[in-house]
């Protein structure tokens, strides 16, 4: 036995000496000397006293029961810091004046305490830190377009993790978004399954959808795009409600949905397959694959992914017409990166989506032999390049990017419409259409972090969107070219520790050149406009637990065809078209938000409560007005017109509770009113029928005054997990065409509670192979619309409430993940 007697002493003597050396960190020695030689002599009146005018204060950092080793104790407004030892004990040298100490330890909430050092000469100074369970320090991107801790972000950002997508058995993004405060996803068409996201009650076109912080979604992608993104490639989705997110585009009036895709480090692969049975019978199958390879030095890597989905059409009322569309989707993509050195990164994105959807009746026949068919065959290709560059000290960051999206779409919106005449047949044979859509985005962003923690972000962005949609049989053309150039700048100002302000503005120059035709009606849009949109957000921390945020944002939309305007639905056996009215003017919005966020722990129980008020005014809002069956072939024409002013005002309450590690509960509810200043015409009667007069309302349609969600996650054991989620939709007004003139009735819809439960079982077959089985029921209480129209003459847009009736699902996931 060669026992070295000094070993024990050596080892721990060594530990102590390392940490002793690191105990006092003086980043800028000169700065600290200034403090000692200038301020203290002035205070005490004699220079020689400066050394004596410091106090040695001893104490301990603990969590209440046990000491916390190696907490950092910083003196606010100086660069001085100390570190506690392994037993949480520390000894500080403090000046003879009131100081604010910042105590930090990983996994604990940062504590600030202002004290007078002389009071602690004989009493120990003890700090008790509280653990941080709710992930409040999560890092988010959206709030200011730079990475920022969620709690420090002046704008409220809700983060949707893949965990939540899994909990809700979401196959596409559209399904998962319902479980966020202030967010509602609704299906707007029984024939084609057109979905849109409503933030704070405003329609889909008021929300800007971003992919990796870039606006690559064109108006056309907005129609079906949310269902085309496979969940397996999403790292997280950040939702910012209201226009407070300063630099995310002038059209982000209701808010921003930023989809962030995964960034791999390890080689990994995953296969997952799901089978859902809608109403217990109609299958919805999907298969997802993804694999990542990253080189040893992390300088190159690629993620490959693919998705296949096949959902049969579902008919809820056995009338032979679909309520849920048949859908097949094949997506294939790759995301690669190359880091030439530590300070730069080049990224590439490629995605190809082939999606087919069809709804209506007799899906097995060619569309022209059916009564109603909406058939869409999308071929979309996205390509993007981005480049990031940091300076050596990481204070300056430059990003440049360019993305192109091209979609080729074959469409069929038509059918015999219940008739069997030669004219019906001719019309049905001429309902084939062709759409091409090109979107190009390019931009540069520059970020500079100053020494005082202020941040300046500036950039510019160019967007082009060229859409051509032609259905010769209806003499329908949408030929639209939108060019926009945006210049933005924002300053994050932190004059006080408790206060942060984001002051920014955006200058947009937009150029719309559109030609719209349906049958004998032609419209054009020729707009050139430059608009300045100021944005302001403030954050004030009353205490560590209570934060106030407030914001103002101005937004605008130039007249053009948006997603809804490109969608054609059927009613009364005929098509319903949308066209822009003459002399349409730009829409402006002013959005105000204010919120209080309170997070507090009661022993091990963690809670957080957010109360947010929002008030958005709209000037000249675009709204659809039905002119009835005014087209020569008997089709319904809806015009996009400027409505009177309007406002949307409401309150969202969000509550989080984590009683223990294994249990998490979240719930949110929104109450709101969406009111036009004057009664708005939704249907313009032509006077031929005495019983049919103009239909007017001052309320927004399809916008419930109350809606909310909850989700509960219970980790029963390491291998077993239970999720219970639900979303509530209150009553609302839904327009319903009830006569062959296109006359509408405003129906008050019932409320819905859509609850889903999921069980997951996890097994590790090997260190490199895991398997997960899951199963559950969606919409357990079968809370589903009961009054769908029947047959060929139905109003296909008369659909509201949960996206599917009671459905069961099973899933298997395996791989090295």
């Amino acid at each position, binding site marked *: 036995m060669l026992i070295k007697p000094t*070993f024990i002493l050596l080892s721990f003597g060594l*530990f102590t000496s390392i*940490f002793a050396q*690191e105990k006092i960190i003086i980043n800028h020695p000169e700065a600290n000397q200034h403090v000692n030689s200038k301020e203290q002599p002035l205070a005490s009146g004699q220079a020689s006293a400066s050394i004596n005018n410091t106090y040695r204060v001893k104490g301990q950092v603990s*969590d209440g029961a046990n000491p916390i080793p190696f907490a950092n104790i910083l003196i606010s407004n100086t660069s001085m810091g100390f570190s506690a030892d*392994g037993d949480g004990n520390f000894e500080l040298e403090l000046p003879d004046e009131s100081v604010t100490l910042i105590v930090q330890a*990983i*996994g604990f909430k940062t504590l600030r305490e202002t004290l007078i050092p002389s009071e602690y000469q004989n009493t120990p100074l003890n700090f008790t830190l509280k653990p941080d369970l709710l992930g409040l320090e999560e890092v988010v991107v959206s709030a200011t377009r730079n990475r920022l801790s969620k709690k420090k972000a002046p704008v409220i950002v809700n983060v949707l993790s893949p965990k939540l997508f899994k909990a809700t058995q979401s196959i596409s993004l559209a399904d998962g978004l319902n479980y966020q405060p202030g967010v509602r996803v609704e299906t707007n068409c029984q024939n084609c399954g057109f979905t849109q996201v409503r933030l704070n009650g405003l329609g889909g076109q008021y929300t800007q959808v971003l992919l990796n912080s870039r606006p690559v979604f064109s108006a056309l992608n907005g129609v079906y795009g949310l269902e085309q993104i496979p969940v397996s490639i999403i790292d997280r989705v950040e939702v910012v409600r209201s226009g407070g997110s300063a630099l995310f585009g002038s059209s982000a009036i209701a808010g921003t949905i930023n989809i962030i895709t995964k960034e791999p*480090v*390890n080689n990994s692969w995953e296969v997952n397959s799901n089978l859902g049975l809608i109403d217990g019978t109609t299958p919805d199958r999907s298969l997802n694959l993804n694999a990542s390879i990253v080189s040893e030095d992390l300088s190159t890597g690629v993620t490959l992914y693919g998705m296949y989905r096949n959902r049969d059409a579902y008919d809820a009322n056995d009338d032979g017409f679909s309520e849920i569309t048949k859908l097949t989707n094949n997506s294939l993509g790759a995301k690669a990166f190359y880091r030439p050195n530590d300070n730069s990164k080049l990224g590439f994105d490629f995605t190809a989506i082939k999606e087919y959807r069809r709804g209506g009746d007799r899906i097995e026949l060619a569309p022209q032999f059916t009564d109603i068919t909406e058939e869409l065959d999308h071929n979309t290709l996205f390509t993007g390049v981005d480049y990031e560059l940091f300076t050596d000290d990481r204070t300056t960051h430059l990003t440049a990017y360019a993305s192109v999206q091209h979609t080729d779409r074959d469409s069929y919106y038509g059918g015999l419409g219940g008739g069997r005449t030669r004219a019906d047949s001719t019309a049905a044979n001429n309902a084939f259409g062709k759409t091409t859509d090109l979107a190009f985005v390019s931009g540069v962003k520059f970020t500079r972090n100053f020494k005082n923690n202020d941040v300046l972000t500036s950039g510019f962005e160019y967007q082009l969107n060229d859409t051509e949609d032609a259905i010769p049989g209806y003499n329908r053309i949408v030929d639209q070219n939108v060019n926009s150039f945006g210049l933005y700048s924002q300053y994050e100002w932190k004059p006080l520790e408790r206060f942060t302000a984001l002051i920014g503005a955006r200058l947009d120059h937009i150029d719309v050149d559109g030609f719209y035709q349906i049958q004998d009606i032609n419209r054009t849009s020729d707009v050139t406009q430059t608009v300045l949109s100021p944005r302001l957000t403030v954050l004030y921390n009353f205490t560590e637990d209570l934060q106030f945020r407030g914001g103002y944002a101005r937004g605008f939309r130039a007249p053009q065809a948006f997603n809804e305007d490109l969608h054609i639905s059927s009613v009364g056996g005929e098509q319903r078209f949308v066209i822009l009215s003459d002399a349409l003017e730009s829409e402006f919005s002013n959005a105000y938000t204010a919120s209080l966020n309170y997070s507090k722990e009661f022993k091990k129980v963690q809670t957080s409560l957010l109360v947010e008020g929002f008030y958005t005014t709209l000037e000249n809002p675009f709204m659809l007005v039905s002119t009835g069956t005014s087209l020569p072939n008997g089709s319904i024409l809806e015009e996009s017109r400027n409505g009177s002013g309007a406002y949307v005002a409401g309150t969202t309450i969000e509550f989080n509770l984590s009683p223990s590690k294994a249990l998490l509960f979240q719930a949110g509810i929104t109450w709101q009113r969406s009111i036009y200043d004057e009664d708005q015409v939704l249907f313009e009667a032509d006077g031929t029928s005495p019983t049919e007069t103009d239909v007017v309302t001052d309320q927004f349609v399809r916008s419930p005054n109350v809606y909310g969600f909850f989700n509960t996650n219970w980790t029963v054991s390491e291998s077993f997990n239970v999720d219970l989620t639900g979303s509530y939709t209150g009553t609302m007004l839904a327009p319903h065409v009830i006569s062959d003139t296109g006359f509408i009735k405003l129906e008050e819809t019932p409320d819905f509670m859509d609850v889903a439960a999921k069980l997951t079982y996890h097994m590790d077959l090997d260190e490199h192979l895991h398997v997960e089985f899951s199963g559950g029921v969606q919409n357990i209480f079968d809370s589903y619309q009961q009054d769908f129209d029947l047959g060929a003459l139905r109003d296909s847009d008369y659909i509201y409430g949960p996206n599917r009736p009671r459905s069961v699902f099973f899933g298997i996931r395996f791989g090295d993940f």
Partner: protein
Amino acid sequence: MKKILLFLFLTCGNLAAQDREQINWLSWEQLEDALNEEPKKTFVFFHADWCAYCKKIDRVVFTKPEVIKKINAEYYTVRMDAETTDTIRFDGQTFTNRQALTKRNGVHDLALLLGSRPEKSFSLPVTLFFDEQFALKQRVFEYYTSSELLKILEQ
């Protein structure tokens, strides 16, 4: 000829055997015994389940034959889950994971002792290099490639 064949056979056998070789990880208790018996340099690696870069090192760097060979020849090695809740005895002291009593992903006292940096949060991976006297030579708080690791091991 026979000699050449025998040589080839042995070499191939050796290569094949090397492929399957692993780093001889010790527990802290084993390390203490080993150090008492024969002083040697020590290599300590802290990781956690969720740490993607740790996993990358485990899978890519620690599986390289030249790394395994070098480490096994010259170092005692300890690999520890920084979030383990095991009680560890080392150097006459007992270490537990007290953070785990109050929080998720609590870091073990021993990992905090060896892997903390002032003014910075505890972050993973943490790799420590000790000399024959168990005096700390270097701490690395980030990912490294096998060639970078070999360079440090040479020192």
